């Protein structure tokens, strides 16, 4: 059954892409292709001849939103006077679209610059299992799209018992410190997590800032821990839980656990979920005078 859905979505992408390119509605389609070793990878189509290479299945893990700003920029950015803003099309799952919302809210992108080929998402696969965060996902259809590919699947979302977060919370502070030290020890400071994250778009990351030098150049556990903690904090209320960081990590560090903890606290303290609406400011960009917050 899964295969049929995938083919339907893939065909939908191709049909739409073909039309968009032939009508000149977008300058570029950001989608997926099958790499030389069979793995799915990001791909950029500029002409109708390339449309046939567009594919989709439930292992297309990359959050392509990370490429959007560059491609819009390459089409001439928003700068061309009077001309309609350049547009790119992007294949996007519900979580990816929420990342677009984050960028739109932050003024990095205008809604009309993207044509969203939204996926009615059946959940992503790791091997032959649906990934845990996808099983919990309640959002099968993106919050906005220009075309919807596939039928909204009737999938009952699993209840989120936050078991993974609770397991860590059940440890003592010392044990938690040791747990993360062990995980971050494997980190090679390659920044793949940051680079794969649509929310990490700073011109200069504090990890590379020299003056002031917040982190230092060493690849040691304290520096690596500092980086990951700060990154999670910078994503507070902004992380859409697409898991692109964890997918990108060559050392298989459970990075999304950090983001999930943050997401839960954001939900609990501020009743907010990231990327739901581009007009609603994220919790750390706003406040309520009368709120009672545990400090």
């Amino acid at each position, binding site marked *: 059954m899964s295969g049929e859905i995938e083919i339907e979505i893939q065909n939908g992408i191709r049909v739409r892409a073909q039309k968009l390119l032939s009508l000149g509605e977008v300058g570029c389609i950001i989608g997926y292709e099958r790499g030389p070793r069979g793995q799915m990878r990001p791909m950029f189509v500029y002409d109708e001849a390339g449309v046939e290479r567009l594919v989709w299945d439930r292992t297309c893990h990359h959050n392509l939103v990370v490429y959007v700003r560059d491609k819009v920029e390459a089409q001439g950015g928003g700068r061309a006077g009077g001309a309609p803003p350049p547009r790119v099309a992007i294949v996007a799952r519900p979580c990816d679209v929420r990342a677009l919302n984050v960028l739109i809210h932050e003024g990095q992108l205008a809604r009309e610059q993207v044509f969203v080929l939204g996926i009615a998402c059946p959940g992503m696969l790791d091997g032959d299992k649906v990934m845990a965060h996808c099983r919990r996902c309640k959002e099968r259809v993106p919050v906005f799209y220009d075309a919807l590919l596939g039928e909204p699947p009737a999938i009952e979302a699993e209840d989120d018992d936050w078991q993974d*977060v609770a397991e*860590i*919370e059940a440890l003592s*502070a*010392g*044990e*938690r*410190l*040791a*747990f*993360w*030290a062990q995980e*971050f*020890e*494997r980190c090679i400071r390659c920044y793949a997590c940051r680079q794969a994250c649509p929310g990490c778009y700073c011109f200069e990351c*504090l990890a590379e800032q020299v003056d002031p030098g*917040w982190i230092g150049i*060493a*690849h*040691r*556990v*304290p520096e*690596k*821990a*500092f980086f990951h*903690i*700060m990154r*999670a*904090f910078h994503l*507070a209320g902004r992380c859409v839980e697409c898991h692109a960081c964890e997918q990108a990590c060559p050392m298989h560090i459970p990075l999304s656990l*950090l983001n999930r*903890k*943050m997401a839960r*606290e*954001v939900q609990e*303290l*501020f009743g907010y979920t990231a990327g739901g609406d581009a007009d609603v400011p994220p*919790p*750390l960009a706003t*406040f*309520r*005078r009368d*709120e009672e*917050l*545990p*400090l």
Partner: protein
Amino acid sequence: MDTDFEPKIVGFLCNWCSYAGADMAGTSRVRYPANIRIIRVPCSGRVDPLYVLKAFQEGADGVLVAGCHPGDCHYGDGNYHARRRYALMHRFLDFVGIDAGRLRIDWVSAAEGNRFAQVVAELTDEVRRLGPWQGLGNGRASTAQEAAQREVTAALEGRDR
């Protein structure tokens, strides 16, 4: 517990209220633990969580962030932002192993010299109880190889005995 342990506390105090509160404590001869190292900042809203983390990175055993009471911010709403930020940061730092007791967010006005002394005393006591902070990375100021090597050496020494 290490009875000689004197915690190092870094205090980020807002210029308008809490720093003045500390001043008030001083001029009114209210005693408070000398463990705190004060950094004056314009506003509690200026205290980037980066500063707090950096303080822990550089060896602080505890951190205090203090500003004007909600409603009294010199700049209008800086402390409201700080309140949100640290409500979240507090829980998150605890999750990565920085015991919640090591970080305190509080409001101290310019008139509250006694309260300032009390906040510092409570935090110092709590941190003293928690013991020295091991540092991010659980004291593993090493590369993966160095750490693995140390483990191996320790294990081998154990085996010889």
